[in-house]
């Protein structure tokens, strides 16, 4: 009995300790705004590694998810003669939910895991230590540009995802299944509000924050062995995905009720 209580205590302490370290890393990454001359090229480089390299998967998934939504939505809506609502249905699902959420999940798998593994490997090969000994702060040099690049990339990726999804839905709904082109767009324009786009972007920023934070923290804090890195990478993706889904529920409850 006593041992179980002690175990619980140990667990809580280690969770709190981890949280504390994560917050410290976050604070120093944010507080150390990189100086522009040295920091900007690093930021651009990470924008490439994180944003540009995720582009293909985001574009392909966005288009296909839009196409599937249109196909599924059409078969249901046509029974009620409401296929005119296909446009807003697809646009609202993409802008409010699927765009930010699926982008964040794909991002966690594509870019988050790579971030964790890269930072973890830098730690294991003593590159982070050696930066410190060269009087270069690894938080500023390694963590901060990656964090900011992730934060900046995700909303852009989500917007690209959504617009391609709507394009895909147009392709299937209008070109293939024969929904009237005018109805498709005008009903969508009547029902979608600028607020939907802003809320979707806010969601996206929140997810970007959480996913990149978890990714850099897991990498920076991993046990520097091959097993430790593999575990850190897995848990980075798993935890980031769960956090995204949980956070999505909370944000949806706040924004759309």
């Amino acid at each position: 009995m006593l041992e179980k209580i002690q175990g619980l205590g140990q667990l809580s302490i280690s969770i709190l300790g981890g949280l504390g370290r994560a917050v410290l890393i976050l604070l120093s990454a944010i507080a150390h705004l990189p100086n522009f001359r040295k920091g900007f090229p690093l930021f651009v480089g990470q924008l490439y590694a994180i944003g540009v390299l995720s582009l293909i998967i985001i574009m392909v998934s966005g288009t296909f998810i839009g196409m599937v939504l249109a196909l599924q939505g059409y078969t249901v809506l046509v029974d009620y003669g409401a296929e005119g609502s296909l446009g807003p249905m697809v646009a609202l699902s993409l802008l409010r939910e699927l765009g930010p959420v699926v982008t964040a999940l794909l991002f966690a798998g594509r870019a988050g895991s790579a971030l964790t593994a890269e930072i973890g490997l830098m730690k294991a090969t003593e590159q982070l230590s050696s930066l410190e000994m060269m009087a270069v702060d690894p938080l500023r040099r390694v963590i901060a540009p990656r964090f900011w690049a992730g934060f900046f990339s995700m909303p852009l990726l989500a917007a690209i995802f959504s617009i391609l999804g709507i394009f895909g839905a147009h392709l299937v709904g209008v070109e293939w299944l024969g929904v009237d082109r005018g109805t498709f767009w005008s009903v969508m324009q009547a029902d979608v509000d600028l607020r939907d786009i802003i809320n979707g972007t806010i969601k996206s920023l929140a997810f970007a924050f959480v996913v990149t934070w978890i990714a850099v923290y897991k990498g920076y804090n991993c046990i520097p062995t091959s097993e430790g890195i593999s575990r850190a990478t897995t848990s980075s993706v798993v935890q980031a995905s769960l956090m995204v889904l949980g956070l999505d529920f909370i944000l949806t409850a706040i924004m759309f009720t």
Partner: protein
Amino acid sequence: MSKKIELMVGLFVALGIAAFLALAIKVADAGIQGNGESYQLHAKFDNIGGLKVRSAVKVGGVVVGRISSIRLDSEDYTPIVTLDIFTKYDNFSETTSLSILTAGLLGEQYIGLDPGFMDEELGIEILQPGDYIEDTKPAIVLEELIGQFLFSQDSDN
């Protein structure tokens, strides 16, 4: 930092911004209608059915405003709906009537606004911001409609 990477990043950022613009203009149709200036009118209904905050107010199918709030009168417990009407439609008369309509068979409910007539000799004036619209028709509730239908069938026999 190679030129190729810089170019790709530039393209990526441009693509992202273009996507935002396309969403805003093409999908949400912002800028053309937007949420410009508006003034408020109130109306009491017996039953608002499935009306929601931000439902549209339409005149002959043209959106002239949105519902900004729905609350219950604290004395007689009837719903009070507040409408935000765009300022450019600012000369509805006091005889204006409102009815709660449904878009299609199962679509969203909205308020249909019938502008009514204007006659200064009879003392009928333009609605001022904050006025109440008196003439309202409640939402049609399907169950009541069916009930009425059955009742009239009965009395026919």
